[in-house]
């Protein structure tokens, strides 16, 4: 039987690789499989190589780097077998954790011209899919940071303008009140009265500028009922909530923040994608602090698939104190 042509068979190492992949995906005849098994059962180096190829195949599958035919075989001949589940789960965790590692200072230069055959036709010849994905993520992150900064500054300016308008109105009211008082007391001796034109000093409250942060893990906060507590002051402008996601298998997420004691309060945001943070995958939402009242809050994280299916992936809760 011809082995799967997973890579160009330019060397004996590639032929070994193809044979191992064919064995793992049940594409060898019984005789070929027995010969292959006899070899790796009596030679530990051959066994280690098989194990290495198996792990590589799983990682390539999880990273969506397998060609269509191999991918299909992997799903039907390997991934659906319960005895392989442990290996796949281990690889998943390894990918999640290693992808959150900080980038190296001097990355190993990978030349695109030597890539696997399936990558050579990629339109940007100097950019591999993995690198293109990294660049896209970086550009997206920078855009999010810039947009976040812009929105924050815009909101802060709006809050300051609003506060100034309120203060001016208050000052006008006080001025009117003072003038009316002066009118009613115009016949009285004003020696001890302040000069009508003397400006009154008004204590201006500082506009809210601070951001309070809260990191929540799904359904696992121990301690007092109500989950974590966060305390906001009058100078807090935003409450930044980072939701740790331990089910990263959805295409996007929708977040709904609600107050069980107040059905009118409902904040929701759809189409969110998790990013890698210190605790793994994290989704961040920012709530305007001034609109939040003290009490218990519940956050529902809904996972959405491309097919339109939706389900609650996680629930979080926290208590807000003011």
């Amino acid at each position, binding site marked *: 039987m011809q082995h799967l042509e997973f890579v160009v068979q330019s060397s004996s*190492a590639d032929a070994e690789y193809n044979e191992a992949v064919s*064995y793992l995906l049940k594409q060898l005849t019984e005789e070929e499989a*027995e010969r292959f*098994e*006899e070899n*790796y*059962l*009596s*030679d*530990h*180096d051959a*066994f*280690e*190589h*098989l*194990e*290495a*190829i198996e*792990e*590589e195949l799983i*990682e390539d599958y999880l*990273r969506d*780097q397998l060609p269509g035919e191999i991918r299909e075989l992997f799903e039907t001949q390997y991934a659906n*077998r*319960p*005895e392989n*589940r442990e290996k796949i789960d*281990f690889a998943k*965790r*390894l*990918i*999640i*954790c*290693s*992808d*959150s*590692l900080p980038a*190296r200072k001097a*990355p*190993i*230069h*990978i*030349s*695109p011209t*030597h*890539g*696997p055959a399936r*990558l050579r036709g990629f339109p940007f010849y100097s950019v591999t899919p*993995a*690198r293109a994905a990294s660049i896209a993520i970086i550009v997206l992150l920078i855009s999010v940071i810039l947009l976040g900064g812009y929105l924050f500054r815009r909101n802060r300016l709006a809050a300051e303008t609003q506060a100034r308008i309120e203060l001016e109105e208050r000052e006008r009211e006080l001025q009117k009140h003072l003038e009316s008082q002066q009118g009613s007391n115009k016949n009285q001796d004003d020696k001890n009265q302040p000069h009508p034109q003397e400006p009154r000093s008004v204590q201006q409250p500082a506009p809210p500028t601070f951001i309070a942060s809260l990191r929540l*893990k*799904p*359904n*696992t906060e121990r301690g007092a009922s109500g989950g974590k507590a966060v305390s906001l002051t009058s100078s807090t402008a935003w409450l930044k909530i980072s939701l*740790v996601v*331990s*089910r990263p298998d959805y295409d996007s997420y929708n977040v709904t923040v609600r107050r069980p004691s107040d059905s009118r309060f409902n904040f929701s945001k759809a189409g969110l994608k998790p990013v890698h943070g210190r605790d*793994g995958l994290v989704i961040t939402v920012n709530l305007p602090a001034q609109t939040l009242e003290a009490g218990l809050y519940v956050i529902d994280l809904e996972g959405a698939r491309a097919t339109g299916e939706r*389900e609650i992936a*996680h629930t979080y809760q926290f208590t807000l104190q003011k």
Partner: protein
Amino acid sequence: MSGQEATGSDGFNSLLLMLDSNREQAGIRYEELRQRLISYFRHRECLTPEDLADKTFTRVSGKLVEGEEIRNIGAFCFGVARMILKEHWTSLNKQPSSLTDLPAGQEPSCDPFRTEAEIEIERQKLERMEWCLDQLGDEDRQLLKDYSIGANREHLARVLGTTLKNVRVKVHRLREKLKKCVEACSRDPNAYEI
């Protein structure tokens, strides 16, 4: 149970002696061979590969006690493992498998939702993995990541001045190291602190 499967320290000692004259080295060889047998049964879609690997050793030990002459222990074990596999398949055909027979954690899941306890267990596993990754050296950790991304492994091997096969096996050994660390952490949660 047949006489061939009779266990005993004599048989086990003979097996170790076949593997290596040095007892410590023999222990290492035994563990390596056991891993290979487990892998063999797993690739042959057996749900209890560890049990079948141990059954193979028991039977090989029995043969040694009976005085059977074995030249290549690896090849002999393979022959016995093949027999055990056939017996296993025959027994499965006689006894229709039931979901309750599956080992814990291997039941096919009908419910796509995970319970809170399962989510917590997964979170702990991720934390252990993260901690164990931190224990690796910077270069090893980076190699795991670069190799896993898989953009160009052949070039990566050339940069490291070795062959693709060597890098592949090196990465496999790093994964094994990581796996042992994660297992050690799950046995003793106090061994690490998050």
